[in-house]
């Protein structure tokens, strides 16, 4: 058992690796790990309600806490109201808090 912070920065519609990263987050959570998936830069495009299915919903269903960087959303003109249910708006300081949390989570940046 351990805590994981997975940071995805790539657009899942450009990088085939990104959906696999979301799946990794879901797989870890399904094994009982505490997993935070922080989306930044173009990865936030995955959280739009109208976006094609990209494994984010499955990760949420499997217990992953999904956070989307509000700065990245604003840069791309994605309104907070456009994000799908289960995705929490976050600031970059929230990512620092997650990374520096007690228990020293394992951080993977993609």
């Amino acid at each position, binding site marked *: 058992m351990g805590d994981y912070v997975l940071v995805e*920065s*790539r657009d899942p519609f450009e990088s085939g690796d990104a959906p696999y990263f979301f799946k990794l987050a879901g797989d870890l959570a399904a094994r009982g790990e505490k997993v935070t998936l922080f989306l930044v830069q173009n990865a936030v495009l995955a959280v739009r309600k109208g976006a094609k299915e990209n494994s984010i919903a499955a990760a949420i269903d499997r217990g992953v806490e999904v956070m989307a960087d509000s700065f990245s959303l604003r840069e791309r003109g994605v309104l907070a109201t456009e994000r799908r249910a289960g995705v929490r708006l976050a600031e*970059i300081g929230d*990512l620092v808090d997650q*990374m520096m949390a007690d228990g*020293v989570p394992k951080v993977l940046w993609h």
Partner: protein
Amino acid sequence: MTRTLTMSIMDPPYETATSTTAMRVIDAALRKGINVNVFAYEGAVSLTFKDQKPHPNPVHGTTVEEEKHPTTKDLVAGLFDLAREKAVKLDWINCGMCVDERGAGNWIEGPRRGGPPDLHKWVQESDQTVVIPTK
């Protein structure tokens, strides 16, 4: 006891959003009273290159002043100022071999020259280490 975050970055300036994100993370950590170590290697050693200059935009017809073009060396200098203001430590190492390859040894005040053994030492001493890869 003050905690320490170590980050390694390798993207060159003005190429990807990753540089901006890394600086946002460093800024947030310093504001939270966390010491930050930055190991810059490969293209990232040019983030602090002193000869960077802001420029006008002839396409838009704007002057240097109107354009307010941010340079990464000024952003990093701002992070060092912030660390002093918050009384926390920002230690920034530019990988020496990467610097020599690029002729990028003229950098702003603050960073120092080092190598992989320094990163290894930081990893052992820090509370957390984050590696931000390039594409």
